[in-house]
């Protein structure tokens, strides 16, 4: 009989902390190869289709940027939450609410056009996402509810609310009964960056700017210091005079606003109208992006591009090899699993304990060792 035990390492290796995402990626590739082999596909061929072909032409890089933009936007917001030890799992819902609230202008006032429309939509999107994120924050600070549960459950509320809107009150009357809103007018569409070479829109720029700003916030500003102190030692944070409840609201509102911005950017950019489903799970995948990027905004930009590639690769293997595009989810899941696994092993080592070893007697533990 053997038993596994995790023993805390006295010191963390800085080298392996930095290498962890790369090791995780390598392990994902190995496990992915086994998966492809079991599916009866030549792994090398599959990897070529999955990871290389989707980014071999310029227009495909644009597609990558389109997928990466919401992931990065949401993940940098979540990184602030997670650094503060606040667990917003509901970015998907905040993304959807951002999309809905931002779409109010083109859906309810389709005649309203001009240069003001887009900035107003983006602003409303951020307000919508932040307001929706305020619900779990309020519940946590007022009633001590667990924000993981409340923020997650609100995702399903948001999804059903969107579904009801586009089938009911907001359905396009000229849409032949399809569950979708009117096509947004031109001034409500997020412009493309370089229309000559591909579809990528300003959403990607928003993502890069947000990552830069959050990096400055976290590493250079007192507020970022507050986030880190409260997240790592709340009692020391209270001694510093930082309020935990204020921090809960700050983190939720900030991450909600960024998720909302991602939502309205996606709707007004890549989609152009509201549909029953506006996200292939960006809000959840962004959690992986945040951790793969080590909760560092610059790392998150890189991780966002990698995860965006898993989406494109999933579509590619579906069309080329006839494998379900759920493969993308599998890759994302494996990546998160290996990242968390690597991180755990950086902090802990595994000890095997033989239960068969003779113990003189089961001594009651008297000591509460110093």
């Amino acid at each position, binding site marked *: 009989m053997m038993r596994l035990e995790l023993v805390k390492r*006295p010191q963390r290796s800085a080298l392996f902390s930095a290498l962890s995402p790369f090791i995780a990626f390598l392990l994902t590739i190995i496990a992915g190869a086994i998966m492809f082999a079991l599916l009866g596909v030549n792994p090398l061929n599959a990897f070529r289709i999955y990871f290389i072909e989707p980014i071999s032409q310029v227009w495909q890089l644009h597609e990558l940027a389109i997928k990466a933009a919401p992931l990065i936007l949401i993940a940098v917001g979540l990184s602030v939450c997670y650094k503060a030890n606040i667990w917003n799992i509901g970015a998907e819902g905040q993304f959807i609410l951002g999309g809905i609230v931002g779409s109010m202008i083109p859906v309810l006032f389709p005649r309203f056009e001009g240069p003001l429309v887009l900035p107003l939509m983006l602003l409303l999107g951020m307000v919508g996402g932040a307001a929706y994120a305020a619900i779990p924050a309020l519940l946590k600070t007022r009633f001590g509810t667990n924000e993981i549960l409340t923020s997650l459950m609100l995702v399903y509320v948001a999804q059903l609310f969107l579904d009801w809107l586009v089938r009911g009150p907001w359905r396009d009357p000229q849409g032949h009964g399809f569950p979708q809103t009117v096509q947004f007018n031109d001034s409500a569409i997020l412009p493309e960056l370089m229309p000559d070479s591909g579809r990528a829109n300003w959403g990607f720029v928003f993502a890069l700017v947000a990552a830069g700003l959050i990096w400055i916030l976290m590493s*250079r*500003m*007192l*507020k970022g*210091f507050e986030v*880190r*102190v409260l997240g*790592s*030692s709340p*009692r*020391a*944070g*209270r*001694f*510093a*005079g930082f*309020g935990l409840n204020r921090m809960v609201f700050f983190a939720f509102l900030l991450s909600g606003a960024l998720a909302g911005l991602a939502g309205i950017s996606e709707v007004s950019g890549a989609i152009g109208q509201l549909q029953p489903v506006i996200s292939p799970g960006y809000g959840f995948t962004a959690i992986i992006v945040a951790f793969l990027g080590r909760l560092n905004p610059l790392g998150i930009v890189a991780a966002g591009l990698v995860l965006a590639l898993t989406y494109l690769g999933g579509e590619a293997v579906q069309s080329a090899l006839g494998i379900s595009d759920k493969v993308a989810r599998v890759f994302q899941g494996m990546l998160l699993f290996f990242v968390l696994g690597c991180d755990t092993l950086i902090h802990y080592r595994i000890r095997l304990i033989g239960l068969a070893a003779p*113990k*003189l*007697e*089961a*001594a*009651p*533990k*008297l*000591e*509460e*060792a*110093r």
Partner: protein
Amino acid sequence: MSANHDGANLLEVRGLTKIFGTLTACDHVDLNIAKGEIHALLGENGAGKSTLVKMLFGSLEPNSGEIFWNGQAVRIANPGFAKKLGIGMVFQHFSLFEALTAAENIALSLDDGSPISTIAAKARALSYSYGLPLDPESLVGDLSVGERQRIEIIRCLLQTPQLIILDEPTSVLTPQEADKLFETLERLRSEGKSILYISHRLEEVKRICDRATVLRHGKVVGHCNPREETAASLARMMVGNEVKAVVRAPADGIETAQPLLEIRALSRKPATPFSIPLKNINLTVRAGEVIGIAGVAGNGQGEFFETVSGEVLQQDAASVRIRGKDAGGLGITGRRLMGAAFVPEERLGHGAAPRMKLSENLLLSRHATDGKVFVGTGGMVKSEAIYGAAQRIIKAMDVRKSAPDPEAAALSGGNLQKFIVGRELDRRPGVMVVNQPTWGVDAGAAAHIRQALIELARSGSAVLVISQDLDELFEISDSIAVMHNGELSRPLPIAEATFEKIGLLMGGAEPGHAEHILETA
């Protein structure tokens, strides 16, 4: 001290070594304990006392070395085996369930299936015969710290040990309770039992111990007869060099000095079932003086510190006044801005964030008070100014460290405490409130911190020190008040205070002393 195997030595330890990573916690330690002696194990924090004792009790396995019990080589693999041999241990930190009775707690550790009533009867008989009266039916949660220690001792004695190891037993006792304990120990010695007595309190070691083994940096630096030594010579052996004595210049004209910290009729309801309510506390600390608050641990000191620091707010804004202004409704930042500074008891996780650099930990308590220096426009942190200030504090307080700006957790307790105290002193605060300034700090660092607190007061600040260490309070205070069960006694001027008087107050000898309110105001 020659090794003799004639049976006079109950325990012999030869070359015992324990290595943790790169640290040799115990380095070829030799120790002989004769039958019927009280043997002191002396050493500063981190000298290896706890490691040695844990190896003797089977909690840790040595890397090398031998242990002889009654002349027989033994391998003590676990605490169960140690108990079988006849080694009993009373830990400094008790392992008792507060919701169970004393007898139930004892039954849990005996593990022999005898009914609780039998155990209770045995425990009661034993406790009276050793002069440690104990009601086995009482709930541990209702007992004082001294009474809890009795349970631990009785629990240990019920196993009829030959050798009893006591780890810093008097650190939680009033002087009177400690006297009681010493009588019990002498009685046990007269019955031929041996005691290994771990302490850093030199006076009591001189008083009751027959022999002493002194550890420093994991090595035995000497065996001696403590009765033939002076406290100073013992301290020199422990520390390795002379510890500078703290100098306290007389504080003149304090009676008429301006009150800088005033506590008026401060009460606080318990926040949790096991926390202590504060009852009508009154205290005035004037410019230029150090007031000490003595008391056995767990009598409300932690709760009091939180209310004074502003980590917990008061309903009545006038219940805490700083430099003549009401502060009860302000949080800790607001009180700091009024000129107060605070040092909490816990270093890691309260006074400092363990995984943050020293410079960041400087910002922790001073981001508001030194806002202009450390934080620029738009909330940008000025790292260079903070780094420079941190280096200034490190130099002023002689903080020893391995890197220019290490994480707080990488420092030894004493060095981190010097930094945390220095961080506040650097502000020249008008009011300084410190909880356990030198807890777990080596003698050299402790003297440094105490001297700095006195000098701060003499330069015109009001200093309030909460401490369980009476020696410390007598060394630095101008008057001493005692906290007992959430109440605070009237401060005794140091000229009138004696260990005996303070000890009686620590035991709760001034009931209903709320009458002295504001007689000094």
